[in-house]
């Protein structure tokens, strides 16, 4: 099993003096290829910070992060931008799409930015996987919430990134749309061989994952493999105690 991204001794401190907060307090984590990993934890546990640091959106105070064999903790902004363009895909909770671009243009946006050619076969495969072929020329405003998130997922995959980071991808969706998006993320791992990391606080969403890691107060507090929804609920209950 290959490791696509890893963190060692990750510490992130916000603020100084009285307002000093240790959002991450020594996290060690390896993310495996062909795995859907869910990160869970109560509000303020540092799960979003962990993801932002792993994705190169935020810089860690201490520790090293290696993505796809490259140490990104000392990278310049310019190289981080290039990394995000080529090695990393993103799905956010909301505001995922550029409203002025069509669905197709949104999906190919990272390739356009990198001025890379669009691999049509791969594009078709991804579009068929998200089931949006008949929606490609619509603007985001003309798509439902679930459809928008699926476009975002397609965009995150189209440049064949090493890791896809999804931050509460179903946070704003109803249960039917959530199920569509989660099923697709799982399929992209099982069938397309991607590595996906998803931050969520929905146990049902976490139950789609191969592995669930729990964070509390900036530290790792649990690690489940192929959990059921009940396993996740139990683990969360344990954290609350």
């Amino acid at each position, binding site marked *: 099993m290959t490791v696509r991204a890893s963190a060692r001794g990750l510490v992130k401190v916000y603020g100084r003096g009285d307002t000093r907060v240790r959002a991450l307090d020594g996290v060690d984590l390896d993310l495996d290829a062909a795995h859907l990993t869910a990160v869970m934890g109560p509000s303020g546990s540092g799960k979003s910070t962990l993801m932002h640091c792993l994705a190169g959106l*935020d810089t860690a105070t201490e520790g090293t992060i290696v993505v796809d064999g490259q140490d990104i903790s000392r990278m310049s902004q310019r190289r981080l*931008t*290039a990394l995000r363009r080529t090695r990393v895909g993103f799905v956010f909770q909301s*505001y995922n799409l550029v409203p002025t671009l069509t669905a197709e243009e949104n999906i190919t946006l990272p390739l356009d*930015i990198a001025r890379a050619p669009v691999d049509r076969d791969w594009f078709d495969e991804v579009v068929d996987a998200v089931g949006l072929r008949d929606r490609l020329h619509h603007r985001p405003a003309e798509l439902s919430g679930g459809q928008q998130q699926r476009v975002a997922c397609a965009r995150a995959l189209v440049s064949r990134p090493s890791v896809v980071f999804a931050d509460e991808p179903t946070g704003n969706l109803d249960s039917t749309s959530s199920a569509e998006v989660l099923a697709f993320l799982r399929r992209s791992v099982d069938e397309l061989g991607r590595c996906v990391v998803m931050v969520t606080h929905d146990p049902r969403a976490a139950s789609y994952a191969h592995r669930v890691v729990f964070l509390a107060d900036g530290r790792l507090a649990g690690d489940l493999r192929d959990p059921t929804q009940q396993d996740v609920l139990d683990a969360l209950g344990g954290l609350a105690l």
Partner: protein
Amino acid sequence: MTRVALRGVRAHLVRFVLSVLAVTLGVAFVTGAFAFRSMLSSTFDDIIATTLGADAYVRGADELADAPAQGGTGGGGTATGFGTPRTPVPVALADDVARTDGVARAEPDVSGSVVLVGADGTAVITSGPPSTAFAVQDGDPGVRLTSGTWPSGPHRIALEDSAARTSGLATGARTQVVLGDEPRDVVVSGTFAIEASPAGAILVGVDERTALDTFAPDGLVPSVSVYADPGTSQQQLVAALAPTLPDDAQVVTGDEARDEASEGVEQILGFVETFLLVFAAISLFVGAFIITNTFAMSVRERMRELALLRALGASPQQVFRSILAQAVVVGVLGSALGIVSGAGLVVLIQRVLAARGMELAGSVPLGAVPLAVAVAGGVGVSLAAASVPARRAATVPPVQAMRDDVRPERSVATPAVVGAAVTLLGAALLVLAAALGSSTDETPTGLGLLDDLDPRWVLAAGAAGVLVGALVLSPALARPVLAVLAWPVLPLRPLGRLARGNVTRMPRRTANTAGALMIGMALVSVTGVIAASADASVRSIVDQEMAADYLVDSATFTVPAGAADAVAAVPGVGETDPVRLATLELRSRSDGSGGAGASPAGVSAAGVRPGFFGRALDPVTVEGDPAAALADGQAVVRRLAARDHGWAVGDTVSLRGGTRDLVVGAVIDSQVVTSDVVVPQDVLDALVPERQQSLRVVYVTAADGTRPEALRDGLVAAVQPYLVLSVLDPEEVASSFADQVTRVLNILYALLALSVVIALLGIVNTLALSIIERTREIGLLRAVGLGRLQLAGTIAIEAVLISVYGTALGTAVGIGIGAALPGVLADQGLTTLAVPWGQVLAVLGGAVVIGLVASVWPGIRAARLPVLDAVTTD
């Protein structure tokens, strides 16, 4: 609620900075216009007080009213030249006056134009103020010797201090002057100072005998200055003098003369002020677009906050007032800064003019009324501009606080319909104006009501209609036009597409931003069309009209008589046609009806040799045969004069004095002839004494068998001693006419530049604010890998698109309005429509530059947004 409003301004001060700046620039312009005017006023008052320092003036009883300007008057430059010209009085009257009780001294006012040769051997040419020579002697009030002695004899002159500086001549220096007709060698005997600033005029003192010989060879002067004995008041002096004067002379107090003079000056300055204020108003109007956009965006962004206030019980009126309170802060702040910078601006102008030899009065006076007008303008514009978004804010439903989405912009269907209607109406008026103006028919449309309209007002209404219509229509046009304009940048994936999306998603905002630029650019292109058309009209007409090979012209508007003879004596010269100008007095139409205050109307007349038409000039003939008319001793009348006075061929024009009536022999249309009537020289001599005529130009035709080119060197050599004369071929004549137009238009361009600068600020403002609004989207783009340069590039493309859109629309509107001008202004000589396509392309190129410049700061700001902040913003 006021507290909420003020906190809002303080929290987002940066957001309002450009709005404040827009108000500042407009108000600075208003203040500057007022201050400049009052500075000029006080400068001229000083000059009047100095040059009209006597206690009373004896002068001609009759005004030469309505004397039209003759191709750039000026040269006259008499000390009493501020008021209306009058009939002259004899020099000998001064002696009679001096003998009257209570009179200390009486001096005839003799002065006239002079050409001074500076230390570098070339004539000292001012950029407007006159060069005047006048009699000075020891004991004259108002002048004080600063070095050397007062001049005596025909070959001595004294120079006013600033004239000495400008010319580089010091006491004892030898130089030349052209005094009256002839150049003469002189020595500078001394320098003197006057009490006021000469404001750039070149003042040369000569002794009284020389002045009289030169400027009053027939013994007539414009007036006699009278100084009272100590203890005699101005009124007593006038009362004592009045009974002693002949019928054709009158006496006024010094105060009256000064008041009359300043009245004339004030009138001219009033025009200058109005002219400047028009441009200041344009600047404020353009600035209003920035304010509207700023408040619209601020309201949009604060929608939830405003909805919350409404939910907490604030009434729509309270919300409305809270937004307007912010507008008041912007207006007051901007006005205060504007007044300060306006005053600074005028001081700057003063320094620049002083450095170029035009000293103006020292202080920058600002009355309470101008200040109040400036502040009212600044605050008023700010309030009016903010009231539209404020009304929108007031109508936010409280439920909006609970909703996450932002209301979309209103549809552009209504503006499309209204704008198109207003534009079409305006266009129809422009067509009507052109039809009315160009028609010689009394009833061009056949509809009585329409035919009575003044084409200029129709033109103004049409122009306003098209401009306003285009402004209203602009949001509806934005999407399709920008889609086309963005074509060239679409291959720049994904930047072109992103930029196009950003400028088309809020068509109202884009249109507003571009609207400011549109107004400026519309005016620029109207000016451009006028310039190009004037140039083309003048060239085509002068080329057609001028039949002579050369024209001898004078920088002082008077050709010395000796020069005309010298030109005629050049070998190879066939014919010379001197043109002498004079003013004729028409028999007043109100004569007999006893109307008090009816003054006789003056017409400008030119005296020429028979055969002038056909040999020297070949003007467009409207009616009759000009050459035959001159041969018969009849008058040739310019079409405009014929129209104004209701003359037709065969009519008799009676002149005041009744020595001779004129018969209208032909009507012509001419660009070169600016006199109302052209008569044979012997007729003019019979009507007007020779000293009241001035030799304006000489046309030169080569003798048979002599090539015109061969003549030039001889002509140039013949006029060279007269310093101020130039020899022009028809091509150069056309250019010199065109240059006059260009000079005026350059001033317009400079004034319009300010509104373009404000429009540029508007683009900066809109982009900067829309970046704040698009923080999350920018974060998303950066998160998926958009580089900083790419982001800045996208913003640059947006700016260029907005700028080119505004410019294209403005240019189209401007050319449309300009196209109607030749129809309306044909009488002013604008007969040919020419669109300066080269300039249009240059302006569009300039628009690209404007866009790029405007995008620099917003681009840097956007690129500096931290990605994570952008992604996680609520």
